[in-house]
């Protein structure tokens, strides 16, 4: 049984109100399920609190069918409906279901949009920051090394643990919503020092320089180590935010990597020895030119037709650097009449893109800059899409399977070229 501090016991006894009591009850059940002995305090929580589909609201019709009902019954898994106060922890809302302006283009109904507007109003009223992105760390919530967080979103979790040295497990909707009220999360897994050491070794023997190659290496690593912690060394060069972003998202998709070490690059891996700690490497995997080619072919195995009718960029959500790059590539060109180009980012980054004129450059070329969501999350693609091209290994892993379409993986340049020609001409250099 999890041990409680006096303050945690008081929450469980209802001294901080019914909602916090229900949240603590859920977290105690969760801690006991994990076998955690205590809670850790957190003041950085990222989830999808209270947002729901009309199906879920209708399910709780007898409880009022509103935000309060959904937050009580679903988020807190409570049998009773309770008043939900403003959140206590620093809390933010991750990606949502549609673009707040371009929802018609995304094929959403007015009813679904009205529901989205209602939920967002409630989210704001409950003191939850409307970041609406899978990349909170470039939209206003950047943890620091050693900070205990409670985050959802696998690509954000792996970035937080690996690149920043923040500490979070892959939390779920219910645990993050409860943590927003209690500022507690089970002290288990990545919150603990001994859990964060490497288990397998990855020896990189082929140059890995841009997001295209970092994404493929990430996909390889996830496939090999599954959800264990890899220690990567060798010819990985020129680390940057967007390279880590694409690497981690890919590794979290093909495997379930929640943390990685890159020797001399990530903060908890100043050396191979420090990255492994008391562990000895269980297996060593070599990434060479042959493996690079194999991964490229795996990622492109769902592409047959070279007639591309949709190019999706922004998985994980594009940074301002990437939007600037895409705008530069497409400036003076036009998206082909048989194709669509949608680029996804956060609202914070879009504000900068607008200030710089990138949104306009993209619009003039026939492309759309969208926020909040992506084609996989919202299952929204341009009508009639049969073949998509992406520059994200994560997206090519998910989107074709979810939508029953073909998919190509390539560089950002190849994707922009496909958008402007309607033809896929990508190949491995």
């Amino acid at each position, binding site marked *: 049984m999890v041990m409680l501090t006096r303050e945690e016991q008081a929450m469980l006894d209802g001294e901080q109100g019914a909602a916090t009591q229900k949240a603590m009850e*859920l977290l105690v*059940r*969760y801690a006991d*399920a*994990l*076998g955690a002995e205590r809670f850790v305090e957190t003041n950085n929580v990222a989830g999808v609190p209270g947002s729901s589909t009309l199906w*879920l609201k209708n*399910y709780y019709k007898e409880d009022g069918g509103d935000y309060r009902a959904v937050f009580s019954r*679903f988020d807190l*898994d409570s049998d009773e409906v309770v008043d939900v106060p403003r959140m206590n922890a620093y809390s933010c809302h991750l990606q949502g279901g549609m673009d707040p302006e371009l929802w018609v283009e995304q094929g959403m109904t007015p009813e679904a949009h009205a529901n989205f507007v209602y939920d967002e109003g409630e989210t704001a009223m409950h003191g939850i920051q409307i970041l609406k992105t899978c990349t909170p760390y470039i939209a206003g919530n950047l943890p620091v090394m050693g900070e205990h967080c409670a985050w*959802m*979103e*696998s690509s954000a*979790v792996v970035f937080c643990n690996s690149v920043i040295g923040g500490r979070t*497990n*892959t*939390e*779920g*909707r*219910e*645990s993050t919503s409860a943590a927003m009220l209690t500022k507690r999360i089970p002290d*288990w*897994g990545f919150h603990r020092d001994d859990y964060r050491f490497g288990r397998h070794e990855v020896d990189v023997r082929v140059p890995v320089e841009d997001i295209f190659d970092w994404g493929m290496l990430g996909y390889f690593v996830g496939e090999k180590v*599954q*959800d264990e912690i890899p220690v990567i060394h060798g010819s990985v060069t020129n680390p940057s935010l967007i390279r880590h972003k694409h690497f981690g998202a890919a590794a979290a998709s093909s*495997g*379930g990597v929640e943390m990685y070490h890159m020797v001399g690059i990530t903060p908890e891996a100043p050396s191979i020895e420090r990255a492994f700690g008391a562990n000895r490497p269980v297996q060593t995997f070599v990434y060479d030119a042959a493996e690079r080619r194999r991964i490229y072919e795996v990622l492109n195995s769902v592409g047959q037709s070279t007639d591309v009718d949709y190019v999706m960029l922004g998985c994980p959500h594009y940074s301002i650097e990437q939007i600037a790059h895409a705008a530069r590539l497409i400036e003076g060109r036009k998206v082909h009449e048989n194709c669509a180009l949608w680029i996804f980012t956060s609202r914070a980054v879009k504000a900068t893109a607008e200030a710089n004129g990138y949104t306009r450059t993209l619009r003039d070329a026939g492309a759309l800059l969208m926020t909040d969501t992506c084609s*996989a999350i919202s299952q929204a693609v341009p009508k009639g899409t049969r073949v998509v091209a992406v520059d994200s290994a994560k997206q090519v892993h*998910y989107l074709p*399977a*979810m939508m029953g379409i073909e998919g190509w993986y390539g560089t950002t340049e190849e994707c922009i070229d496909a958008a402007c020609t309607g033809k896929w001409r990508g190949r491995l250099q």
Partner: protein
Amino acid sequence: MTLDLDTRPDIILTGRAVVPGIAEGEALVTHQTISGWGGVNAMTGTIIESRHELKGQSFAGKILVFPGAKGSSGWSAVFHTARLAGKAPLAMIFNVMTTKAALGAVVMRVPSITDLDRDPLELIETGDRVQVDADNGQVRIWKRRV
């Protein structure tokens, strides 16, 4: 199929309760980890992941025996929704503890057990009669007679 309570189980395993409670029913076993979001249709309890060995089969009303959870952080919400849709399994037995599996089991509110003294994936086959007694940390197995 009804359980003859006088019949001694063929195998008894001992483990740690994840979610308390007792349930019994027919086993559905997979040696592959299960994805929630993008891997399961919550409305039917059906596995939808491409190339999964259980693709097209529903865990609704079964004792689900699997290695563990993988994939998106939406795991618990998908299994939670399966419970609302009446498509949850009766109980769960799994090997590898993760935050996804723990939270999913909690919000699905089904008896669940892990850390068994022998590998349930080697000893339980689809169709076996299984009782998960998480209150006493036991799994009782009656092998299917052919």
